[in-house]
């Protein structure tokens, strides 16, 4: 009977029956895993307080006797990331990144770079090294680069003109083609999403930077807002799925805006 021992992050947790949980994990060396934790809801020793969303764990799983899901044998906490749950905004961003990874990854396909990215972003969110919105720009741009569908930001998607040569302060975005368009190529007939040159520079820089260098960056609120707006349209479009946590995040922003206005 095959046993797997690995380090993994909890992406999703679904109640199964009265006592069991079905857990979706993202592991460093096995990729995405879906396992069943028998008796986890009533467990006071084996799984008590361990199987929480976004926690990094050391897990041991074994194959089930029949054709069922692998069984979670052991789980011990490495990082509980307790500060993430202390605020709804942090929880919403962590949920958004977890949902992106859950939707993108296929069971059993490993992607160690993406694992490191998710763990380092959850850690930075927990520690408060960066504001959640800047961190979300960093996560999304790095995620797309790692998965091979990053946006074209250095030249026009249609005519390949270098973006630094163009004089216009704003560039149009073509999400379906996967990048930005120069002044000559942008459609004149309808209004489309635009990015300022400053935001494009921020995204270019974020794509090349690591988490430590990204933490030193102090972008303007306008660039963060524009960057998030663009990425939160771009990522779901290329994943081919509307994400629940993104809808939640937008609801939360609307509530926050209303409170500011009041």
């Amino acid at each position, binding site marked *: 009977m095959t046993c797997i021992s690995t380090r993994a992050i909890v992406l*999703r947790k679904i109640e199964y*029956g*009265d006592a069991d949980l079905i857990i979706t994990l993202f592991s460093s060396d096995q990729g995405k895993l879906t396992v069943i934790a028998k008796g986890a809801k009533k467990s*006071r*020793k084996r799984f*008590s*307080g*361990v199987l*929480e*969303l*976004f926690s990094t764990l050391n897990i041991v799983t074994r194959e089930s006797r029949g054709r069922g899901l692998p069984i979670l044998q052991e789980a011990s*906490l490495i990082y*509980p990331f*307790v500060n*993430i*749950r*202390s*605020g*709804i905004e942090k*929880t*919403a961003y962590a*949920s*958004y990144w*977890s*949902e992106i990874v859950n939707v993108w990854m296929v069971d059993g396909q490993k992607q160690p770079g993406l694992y490191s990215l998710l763990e380092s972003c959850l850690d930075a969110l927990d520690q408060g090294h960066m504001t959640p919105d800047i961190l979300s720009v960093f996560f999304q741009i790095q995620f797309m680069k790692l998965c091979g569908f990053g946006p074209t930001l250095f030249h026009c998607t249609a005519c390949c003109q270098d973006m630094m040569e163009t004089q216009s302060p704003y560039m149009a975005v073509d999400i379906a083609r996967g990048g930005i368009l120069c002044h000559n190529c942008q459609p004149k007939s309808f209004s489309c999403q635009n990015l300022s040159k400053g935001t494009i520079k921020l995204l270019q820089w974020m794509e090349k930077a690591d988490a430590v260098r990204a933490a030193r960056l102090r972008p303007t609120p306008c660039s963060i807002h524009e960057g998030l707006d663009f990425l939160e349209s771009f990522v779901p479009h290329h994943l081919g799925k509307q994400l*629940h*946590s993104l*809808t*939640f*995040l937008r*609801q*939360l922003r609307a*509530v926050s805006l209303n409170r500011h206005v009041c």
Partner: protein
Amino acid sequence: MNYYPSAIQNLIKRLGRLPGIGEKSAERLAMHILRSPRNEAEQLARAILDMKDNIRLCAICFGLSEGETCSLCADSRRNPGIVCVVEQPADMISMERSGAFFGRYHILQGVLSPLDGIGPDNIRIRELMSRIESGGIGEVVIATSTSVEGEATAAYLHDMLQSTGVKITRIASGVPMGGDLKYVDQATLKKAMDTRHEF
């Protein structure tokens, strides 16, 4: 199952839809009902229908009630100035069993869950706010669970309630009674140590 007459097949199918009941258990239950006296089967059927017809949500706390308001909200001996916020009616029952709380309740009917798309408009937060704004409440005890969603909901409620001026408290969390320290996870132990109290 196909060998049974259609009335039994139908009952097995219906019982099999209940949570935690598989086909075998449904078959056993159906056979038990078949062998029972007619009045027992009638009582069971009536009890199910009575519950469906008479149970509704209390207009004040959104707990389960047989009338416009539940027995706890109607009880004049309970302190109306303290409201305990819980996720589900079952949490309210657990709290009542503990005998530790003598105020009123507010049942959210869920918890904020970004991954399931359950936002502030999908649970009874607006109703809690209007209940507090109508006055007479001095303290709100947030008793959501200590899971990520429960803690995040508690943090959200704290943010929303701060402007109302009521005292906001959170139930303590730590080592369970009869619990063995070596089996307690580090996050729980840290919280228990942070919120330790003097003897």
